[in-house]
């Protein structure tokens, strides 16, 4: 991992409220270019909300998001996707009626620029563009070892494979920043190992910066460079896996929640 300590993203003093609920209370942290940054914390801590702020689904009441050295104005989620930020969802959000291949093809959306007119007449570059992007998608499919389910409607796939297809869709975008919301939730040990390997490979080979939410401490400690710990909307720890593991506030927060 070539982490060079330049900030890809800088989150400054974010406050996010839903009516009376304060989901994020004045949180700041940064994400270095090329690192794997984990966000952990008990249920309801505000982790998903933070990811939703980063990709524009939620608009915080206060605070700033800096991306690649520039302060980001108010942007729509689809515009943020065009800036090179891709994501997966905690509750898989695939296009259920479409094949795995087509789902991953939608990940190429931001790279396909030919006009609607060109697409309608299937000339003027649209067909060429389609084939070129299809090649990228086939590489993603090979990388994730899902050739055998290319044509299967994703609704019919088992959970673990759906998660993999969803990762594929995000990877197809060749993002600069990849946001993963609990990519290994509900997986068995073997599937988790596969998923960890894919994430590490993406990070190593393509230099993709990754921000991920994960509950499995073993995995988090293994693959991440730095960890942010949230609890009740507050940041209670931030540092390398070792630092976080020995942080008293973090230990208390986790002991206070019986299921962890």
């Amino acid at each position, binding site marked *: 991992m070539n982490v060079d300590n330049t900030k890809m993203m800088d989150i400054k003093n974010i406050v996010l409220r839903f009516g009376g609920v304060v989901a994020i209370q004045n949180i700041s942290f940064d994400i270095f270019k090329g690192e794997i940054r984990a966000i952990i914390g008990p249920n309801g801590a505000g982790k998903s909300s933070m990811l939703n702020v980063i990709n524009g689904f939620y608009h915080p009441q206060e605070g700033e998001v800096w991306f690649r050295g520039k302060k980001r104005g108010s942007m729509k989620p*689809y515009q943020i996707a065009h800036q090179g930020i891709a994501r997966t969802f905690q509750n898989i959000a695939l296009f259920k009626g479409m094949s795995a291949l087509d789902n991953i093809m939608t990940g*190429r959306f931001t790279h396909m620029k030919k006009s609607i007119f060109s697409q309608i007449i299937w000339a003027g570059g649209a067909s060429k563009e389609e084939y070129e992007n299809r090649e990228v998608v086939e590489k993603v499919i090979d990388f994730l070892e899902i050739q055998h389910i290319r044509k299967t409607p994703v609704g019919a796939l088992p959970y673990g494979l759906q998660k993999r297809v969803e990762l594929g869709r995000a990877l197809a975008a060749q993002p600069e920043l990849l946001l993963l919301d609990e990519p290994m939730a509900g997986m068995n040990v073997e599937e988790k190992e596969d998923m960890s390997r894919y994430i590490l490979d993406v990070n190593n080979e393509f230099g993709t910066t990754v921000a991920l939410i994960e509950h499995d401490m073993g995995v988090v400690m293994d693959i991440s460079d730095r960890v942010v710990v949230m609890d009740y909307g507050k940041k209670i720890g931030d540092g390398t896996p070792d630092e976080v593991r020995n942080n008293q506030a973090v230990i208390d927060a986790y002991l206070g929640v019986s299921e962890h």
Partner: protein
Amino acid sequence: MSADFLYTIEVILNGLMAGVLYSLVALGFVLIFKASGIFNYAQGVMALFAALTLVGLQEGRVPFAHLINAVFGTKVHHFDWTLPAIAAIIFTILVMVLFAVLVEKLILKHLVNQEPIILFMATIGLAYFMEGFGDLMWGSDVKTLNVGIPQGGSLWFEDFTIGWAAEGEKFYGMYVDLLDVWAAIIAISLVLFLTVFSQYTKSGRALRAVADDHQAALSVGISLRVIWVLVWSISGFVALVAGMMWGAKSGVQFSLSLIALKALPVLMLGGFTSIPGAIVGGLIIGAGEKLFEFFMAPIIGGATENWFAYVLALLFLVFRPQGLFGEKIIERV
């Protein structure tokens, strides 16, 4: 073959071809409903409006002539040019795209995240507005539309089938209207085109993506507003094709918008979200109502075509509420 059997075949054939037009209107409904969950009551009026615009442009009518004359005391009605059919069709497509943009900008944009019933009401308003607007723009007289599609019975088909009846039976060959045949061919091409477009282009995939999951679609960079415009444009185009066929058949008149109501039983039959359902549903209703009329009218009196489709759809609703191709509705508990 007996003549009765051949007559029945003829009735079915003609019914299927009438059904093609129901299918087209239903298709427009389904496209918008799938992508946005909006039940577009204005689909039928869109067909009328498209047909009116097509005739108006083709004949070089002055838009709003009535209004202009009333205000300025002039007597304008036609420009001194006419347009070839193909040019008029292209301009009408552009008008329907413009219409889609305006619908998005003036209505949909302001109603995001509203209840479906609110959106439905908005489309009812839209339907009546467009009907009035079309009237004001092009006048309410019945217009004949001729875009060069052949019309009248096919002599070839009559000759071809005349020998099918058994020796000694009274049978003069089957009657099919060439216009119906062309309508079927055009409708089939349209559906094939839409299928290919939605499978193999970026925008087609985006349409399907939005139909499945808005959040996920946004996350890969798809702008919902652009997709609304696209889907309303495509529905406008489908409406144009339907309006053109219907107009060529029965003249462009305001009763055209009533065909929207025939699309309703088609949708109940085919399911609101299924494109194959819209097509098959239209064909079943078309053939079904002609057959029913053919066999039952002599017994129970005529004009069964006015209600048969609705009763059929009602029966269908009772036994298969999700429609022919809809997924089984499973109640979550």
